[in-house]
Every structure is written in structure tokens, then in C-alpha cells.
């Protein structure tokens, strides 16, 4: 097992580096845009040159990157163009909010996808399956920001039972935090659950058609034991592996949802970064969001491996 985790980590670290390179290139894909965007259209060439010199933007990209990387490894993600405030502490402050949203959305998505997907597979071809599959198709087409808007319309404006935005830290007031996080978590989680549901249904169908499930039936096991003891764990392994990708989509939604519900997380910081053309802020927050996504992917993949005895223990030729 230790070997498995070690190899996972060993592959993970270069991926993080590569990701930072990609983001760095993406944000500099049009050279010279940083200064012009920050200063505005009427900036004089001298102002631009001064800005670039001040921020080291006139050096070759490779140098800029290595310099930035070096500082990043020490926890320094630069300072905002706008207000000269260091970026890293701001990100750290906002991290819990984003993580909370992500975790809740993840829970919502799986709480829906796992049971309904399994049910659809168990009742394959029958009414429950058709209904659930249709529901998944419809749900998966709903834009998460529209769903958020509708939820606010209904629950905040019409029924007035949930707030339309704002954030109280969990430790300060759990209940208030909960009421503020329900709608955001639902907006993100419901749409993601659609694809995850389909994946669960597919893997469960395959498992239910397997020989070992047939053996369980032949032993006289009732349906709930067949599902819980024999089918579920085997279906979860490919589910987690394939579903890991969906978590990336889920995180993308964080940017919009945090904006709609005025949650002070890293996602909304990304927006601040782009709207103000504040490159260090944008780069730093985009980087951290990507890191969270990649880490989540890796964790999910690892969980899948941990569930699979075939991957944990090597084959021994038996006698």
C-alpha cells in the first residue's frame, strides 16, 4: 500500500508544476497585456514601461516564471497590482470558504447520484430506470448559474426561508453558515449529480451482470445483501475513477457560484482578479483552485485504488 501511495505522490508533484506552467503561459499568451490591462487604454507608453519595470514584466518569460516559482515555493504569490496587498494571505483567508462549498457540493452530488444511479441499475429498463435516467438528462442540461438564480427566486425572494447570499464562518455560527450554504451547495451539486448518476448507473449495471453477483444470487442472498455486500464496493471502484473528472467540472462552477451568493472564497477572488486585470491575484487564485482540483482528483483516484484489493496486494502464485 505504501508503494502505491508513494507512486501516486511522485506523479502528482510534477503535475502540479506542469499546471503552474500552463497557467503562467495562459495568462501571458498575449505578451504585454498585463500592463495595458492594469493601466487602461489611455496609458502612455512611458507609464507602461514604468509599470513593467516596476513589476519585472519586461524580462523574458522563462525568467519571470522561475522567479515567480521560486517565490511561490516560499509561500509568496506576489502582490496585487491594484492595492499592493500580498496575494497569498488573502487566498489563505478565503480557502476555508471554498473548501466548505466544494465539500458540501460534493456531498450533495454523491448523495443524489449514488442511490439513484444504483436504483436505476437495479430496475434496469423498467419505469424507475427510465424516469431516473430522464431526470438525469434534464438535470445535467441546467446551467448551474441559472439554477442558482431560480433557487434564490424561490427560496429567498418568494418563500423567504433562506438567505440570498453572504457568509458566516462555520465556527462562528453553524446554523447561519448552514442556511447560507444550502443554496450554493445545491446549485453546484445538483447539476454535477446528473453526470455522476449516469456513471454510477453504468458501473452498477456492469457489476450486476457479473458472475460474482450471479454467485451471490445462487447462494440465496436477498437483493439488499447482493447490492450492499457484493455490488456496491465493486461498482464504486470504477465510479470513483471515472467520476474523478467530474469533480473538475464541479470546481469550475465554484467561480460562478461564489460570485452569485457573495461567498468570500477563492473562486470570487479569481473574478476579482480578472475584472481588475490584476494578474498576480488572478494567477495566484487560479493556481490554488487548480491545485485543489488536482489534489481532489488524486485523492479520489487513490480512494478507488484503496478499495480494490487487486491493486493493494500483488498476485501471489498460489498452490
Amino acid at each position, binding site marked *: 500500500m505504501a508503494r502505491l501511495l508513494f507512486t501516486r505522490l511522485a506523479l502528482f508533484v510534477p503535475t502540479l508544476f506542469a499546471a503552474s506552467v500552463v497557467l503562467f503561459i495562459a495568462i501571458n499568451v498575449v505578451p504585454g497585456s498585463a500592463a495595458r490591462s492594469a493601466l487602461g487604454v489611455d496609458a502612455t507608453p512611458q507609464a507602461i514601461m514604468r509599470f513593467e519595470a516596476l513589476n519585472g514584466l519586461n524580462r523574458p518569460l522563462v525568467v519571470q516564471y522561475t522567479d515567480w516559482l521560486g517565490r511561490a515555493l516560499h509561500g509568496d504569490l506576489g502582490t496585487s497590482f491594484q492595492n499592493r496587498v500580498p496575494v497569498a494571505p488573502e487566498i489563505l483567508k478565503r480557502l476555508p470558504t471554498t473548501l466548505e462549498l466544494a465539500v458540501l457540493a460534493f456531498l450533495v452530488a454523491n448523495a443524489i447520484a449514488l442511490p439513484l444511479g444504483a436504483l436505476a441499475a437495479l430496475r434496469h429498463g423498467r419505469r424507475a430506470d427510465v424516469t431516473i435516467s430522464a431526470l438525469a438528462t434534464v438535470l445535467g442540461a441546467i446551467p448551474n448559474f441559472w439554477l442558482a438564480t431560480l433557487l434564490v427566486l424561490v427560496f429567498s425572494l418568494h418563500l423567504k426561508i433562506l438567505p440570498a447570499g453572504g457568509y458566516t464562518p462555520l465556527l462562528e455560527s453553524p446554523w447561519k453558515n448552514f442556511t447560507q450554504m444550502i443554496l450554493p451547495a445545491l446549485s453546484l451539486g445538483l447539476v454535477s449529480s446528473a453526470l455522476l448518476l449516469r456513471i454510477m448507473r453504468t458501473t452498477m449495471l456492469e457489476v450486476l451482470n*457479473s*458472475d*460474482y453477483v*450471479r*454467485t*451471490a*444470487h*445462487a*447462494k*440465496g*442472498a*436477498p437483493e439488499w*445483501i447482493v447490492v450492499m*455486500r*457484493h455490488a456496491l*464496493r*465493486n461498482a464504486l*471502484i470504477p465510479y470513483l475513477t471515472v467520476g474523478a473528472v467530474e469533480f473538475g467540472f464541479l470546481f469550475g462552477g465554484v467561480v460562478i457560484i461564489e460570485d452569485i451568493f457573495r461567498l468570500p472564497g477563492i473562486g470570487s477572488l479569481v473574478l476579482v482578479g480578472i475584472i481588475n486585470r490584476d494578474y498576480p491575484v488572478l494567477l495566484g487564485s487560479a493556481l490554488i483552485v487548480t491545485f485543489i482540483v488536482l489534489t481532489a482528483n488524486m485523492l479520489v483516484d487513490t480512494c478507488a485504488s484503496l*478499495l*480494490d*484489493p*487487486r491493486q493493494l*496486494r500483488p*498476485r*501471489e*502464485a*498460489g*498452490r
Partner: protein
Amino acid sequence: MPPLPQDAARQTLEIRDLSIAFPTPRGSARVVDHVSLSIGGGEIVGLIGESGSGKTLTALAVLGMTPRGARIESGSILLGGESLLDKTERERRAIRGDRVAYIPQDALRSLNPTLRVGPQVGEPLTLHRATPWTVAKRKAVELLAAVHLRDPARRAEEYPHQFSGGMQQRAMIAMGLCLEPQLLIADEPTTALDVTVQAQVLRLVREIRKEHRTAILFITHDLGVVADLCDRVYVMYAGAVVEEGPVDRIFERPSHPYTRGLLRATPAMHGPKEALIPIPGQVPLATERPKGCRFVDRCAFAIDSCHSPPPWVEVEARHKALCIRAGEAEVAA
């Protein structure tokens, strides 16, 4: 339902006139066509046929595990005199694994890869006898020892992928024996194994019969295994039984042209220099069977009367074949 004959209660398994059909785009396909067979306690009965002959489906019908869409059109299945087809699903579940055990072909795929072998083997105890897991696991170790697995206590803690093919099959057998069933249905259990391992499994099956007097239905397409192991044989072709009898009589005097063709096409039955003679033609689709004898298009001995349904001809004591020319000297040669 006709009254039970006197000796029916003595038979562990009795299948009478069973027909199972599937709907297909081309009409209803009767995959099992009026099949009758019986097995007594302590008997090892072979069921031979090519794939698609309906043998597995027959076995699944006994277990009550026919696939969705399969319709049992007629017939009865009696286990120790009790009719199985009349039972509810709950009653059938109580019988499966307890009074009837199923041993499938591919042992590796038939074992749950994420559960240790011990709990899987002992599971029937928890399902049918409400045995606590600790006791069941201990019994599982005993069962693994009974199937000659070395170091059974350690093996019980391992996962299926850590076993070899032969060990996996023996674990499946241990699982089947857990509650000392009246009937054991083995569906091609040796097909995927190499010869030496095969011999071990067959030896095990004989032991089981000797010690527990279990009735064993041994489904296979391997004539060599049948000759080695079985007391009686049923030969199935295209969904129907075409010949039945004691195994030595069947091999000595095959009375149905299909059986004869099978023997001539099987390497194990011949000396090293003799030519193998395959049966010409192909098995007809279940929706396109000829009227009358189903083998007529491939039979070297077909005559005009073969286009009407063939009768059962009793060639010897307890040896009969579904052929109008069964027993004729020409056919048996």
C-alpha cells in the same frame, strides 16, 4: 398435474417435460424443449451438449435464476418431491445455496474480488442458518481444508486474485458444499482448468458423492470427463434430450446419430492415428428448427419418416434415444 409415480420421491431431482422460451424479433424461441431428466441421491449425472443446447438454461431453471424474458412454458421441476416452479421467489431463495448449490465455470469471475475468500465461502451459513460471522468464518476454514487447500486458515484471509485457477475452483466447491446440499449443479467446472488440476477437481467431486450422497448434475461438453466421472448421461441437442442412459452403455453403443457423431469428433475417444470426423452442418437456430427430428439436416441416416417427430426408442434397459432408427445395427456401428 399427473399423479407422482411411486419412485419419484426417491429421486432428488426430477425435471419433467420442461420447456423454456425466449421472445426474439423472429418469434418465440424454445431454447429448452420438453426436457426430462432425473437424478437420485448419490448419483453423478452428466449433461452433455454443445453451447446453445440449452443445458445451462435448464440448470438455471432448477435454481430459479432464469434470465429476464425467459418464460417457462410447461413442465415441472421437483426437488425431493417438492415442486419448485410453484414456489415464490422467497421460497426459492431459501432453497438456493442450501438444498441446491451451483458451481459455475469461471471461478475467478465468480468470486467477489473485493471480499476475502473465507467470508465468501462461509456466507451461505449466515444467509440460511443465521450463523454469526465468527462461526461462519471458522467453518469456512474447515471447508477449505475439506477441499484439500493447503494452509486453509491463511487462504481464508486472502482475496480471490491471490489464488490459482485450481484453488479458486476448489473454493467455489467449498462454497457450494457449505450447507451440505441435496443437489449440486456443476456447470462446466473443469473446462477452464488444465488437465492435472482437472483431475484433482474430479477426484474431489467423487469424494463429495461418496461422503455426502449428494446428487450431482455435471454439465459439460467434454466427453472425456463424462466417461471418467458420471454414472448416467443425458445428451442434449438444440434444446432437447436426444439420448439418455448409463455412461458405459452410451459410449459402447451410441444410439442417436448425434451422440455417435459427437464420439467420432472427439479426440479423447480415439486412438492417436484415427481421424476425427466432424459433424457436418450447424446447429439450427431455435426459431428455425426443422419439423420432426431436429437433427435431420445433419444426419447421415435420415429417412423420410424423420420429418415427423421422432419417438423414444428403448435400446436397452434404461438406455433410450430419440430416433426412429435407434437400435438399428447400422446406426450403432
